């Protein structure tokens, strides 16, 4: 069966191009409404994606991509053997032995709790911005690290403490609450455990950070006593928050599209009412009920497609221009980027356009049901 007659009618006649009827006007309004909804959704999601991808980039840059930990307890056994196995199987991966624990860091100003991170690749002591600020040490300075571990002295048990020299202040890792003191591995071992043991192997592979967990898991398959954490497990709360943010924004802004679709529904229902006599005439001339429905679906989808594609084009162009020109500057120091970042994900645009089309189809499908069910006699009777 051919759709040509329906196309012909939907275009030429239902929208009424010959005269500027109010149907044509309302149709234009529906189209613009839907288009604006798509623009809003595309720009908002591009903004979100811009921020989120800058956060993810930061995460990849500053944190580890996988970690090998003991399955139980805190001591990783056979570290050297593990490390050489990983090194031979995954030569490009950077392997660092590490140890973490809570401690109290005291300066002349204040004493604050902090996370002590010992790493085999670290030579000097670094405090992150948050810790440095709390300690009031400005750029650098000497601090005392007080361990929860105790040592027996003639005066009774006293906490182990050590004086370290903070040489630099680093950025706070994304997702970390702050308060991190990074020291050479041996220093951490001395302060926290008093023995030369390691808690974990921190792995980094900038070429494919998100896949590293799986690759390591494959290498260590069947090996008891260790667990492997990938990016997803290591940063679960942060990634969950990002995903949740996306979903909520999509739903909230997507409601604009639902409103636009309701407007389209009103428009299609209005066409159905306004053109009731003409539809009855078409039916009397032999247009089958299914084709009447198709006519209305076509009408709604036509408006939907025009609005969605136009809106997507405007939205993508807006996001691109705002990103390329850096038109919306951000205060320095607060964010990692200097202007509001926009990032257009083609998949996301496809989803938005798809949603707009689905909503248009539903919006025109509902009135079309009513139209197709009527007997033509009703519409023909009165002028």
């Amino acid at each position, binding site marked *: 069966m051919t759709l040509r007659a329906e196309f012909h009618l939907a275009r030429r006649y239902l929208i009424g191009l010959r*005269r500027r009827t109010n149907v044509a006007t309302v149709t234009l309004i529906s189209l613009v409404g839907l288009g604006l909804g798509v623009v809003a959704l595309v720009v908002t999601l591009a903004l979100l994606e811009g921020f989120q991808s800058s956060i993810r980039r930061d995460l990849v840059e500053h944190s580890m991509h996988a970690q090998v930990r003991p399955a139980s307890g805190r001591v990783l056994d056979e570290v050297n053997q593990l490390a050489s196995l990983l090194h031979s199987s995954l030569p490009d991966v950077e392997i660092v032995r590490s140890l973490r624990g809570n401690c109290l860091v005291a300066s002349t100003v204040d004493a604050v709790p902090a996370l002590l991170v010992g790493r085999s690749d670290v030579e000097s002591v670094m405090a992150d911005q948050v810790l440095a600020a709390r300690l009031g040490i400005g750029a650098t300075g000497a601090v005392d690290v007080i361990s929860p571990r105790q040592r027996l002295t003639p005066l009774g048990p006293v906490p182990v403490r050590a004086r370290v020299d903070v040489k630099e202040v680093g950025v706070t890792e994304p997702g970390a609450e702050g308060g991190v003191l990074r020291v050479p591995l041996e220093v951490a071992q001395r302060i926290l455990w008093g023995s030369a043991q390691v808690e974990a192997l921190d792995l980094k592979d900038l070429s494919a950070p998100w896949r590293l967990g799986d690759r390591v898991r494959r290498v260590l398959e069947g090996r008891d006593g260790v667990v492997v954490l990938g990016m997803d497990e290591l940063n679960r709360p942060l990634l969950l928050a990002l995903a949740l943010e996306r979903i909520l924004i999509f739903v909230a802004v997507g409601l604009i599209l639902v409103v636009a679709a309701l407007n389209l529904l009103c428009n299609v229902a209005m066409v159905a009412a306004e053109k009731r006599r003409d539809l009855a005439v078409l039916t009397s001339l032999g247009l089958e009920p299914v084709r009447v429905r198709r006519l209305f679906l076509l009408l709604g989808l036509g408006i939907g497609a025009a609005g969605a594609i136009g809106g997507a084009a405007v939205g993508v162009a807006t996001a691109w221009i705002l990103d390329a020109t850096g038109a919306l500057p951000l205060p320095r120091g607060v964010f990692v980027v200097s202007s509001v970042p926009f990032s257009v994900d083609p998949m996301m645009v496809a989803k938005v356009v798809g949603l707009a089309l689905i909503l248009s189809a539903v919006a025109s499908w509902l009135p079309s049901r009513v139209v197709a069910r009527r007997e033509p006699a009703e519409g023909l009777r009165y002028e």
Partner: protein
Amino acid sequence: MSENNVMIRLRGISKDYGEGDARVEVLKGLDLEVNKGEMLAIVGPSGVGKSTLLHLVGLLDRANGGLVELDGQDTDALNGSERARLRNKMLGFVFQHHHLLDELDARDNVALPMRIAGRPATQARQEAEALLDTVGLSARLTHFPDQLSGGEQQRVAVARALVMRPQLLLADEPTGNLDRAASDGVFRLIRDLHTEESLTSVIVTHNEEMAGQCDRVFKLAPAGELSGYV
């Protein structure tokens, strides 16, 4: 009369509108037969149900009871799509109001049934032009309905009704809105085409003179009273 000589057969047709207290019984137990090639006039007072009857014959509405047979085929069993296709192929309608589509010119209006039937646009246009020529409007092809006189509008409507070469022409007061001269012209056109195209025609009319020129006249009476040929 042999069985396959009957084009329209109605048996025990009843039709009512509305529900409960607002229920109006329009047709009740109506029987009617129209032979092939016959031109039947239906007359009766206003509001008696002439249009209702014509709509039932034309498969534009469904009766509450009874049988509608067209060319020996029981139409009751047909679904909406089958009824639509039958209207497209077999039936032509002319109404009191022209019911042309305002957005299409005369030629496109006449071509519409062919487009609906899925014929190519060029063929539909050629046929439309031929029929507009037949009804004497070859100079009005690209005029829109509001650029035509009442008589011309009805001629376009007649052309549209016949473009698919139907067997059956149904006209509901086709000259009801026209002045005397236009009215005579349109009726003469219908009568001539009825003969030329070997149609079976049912014409609802208030005009005694026109009814007199038909083969038979059926007088429709209010429900409960006896309708019959006069």
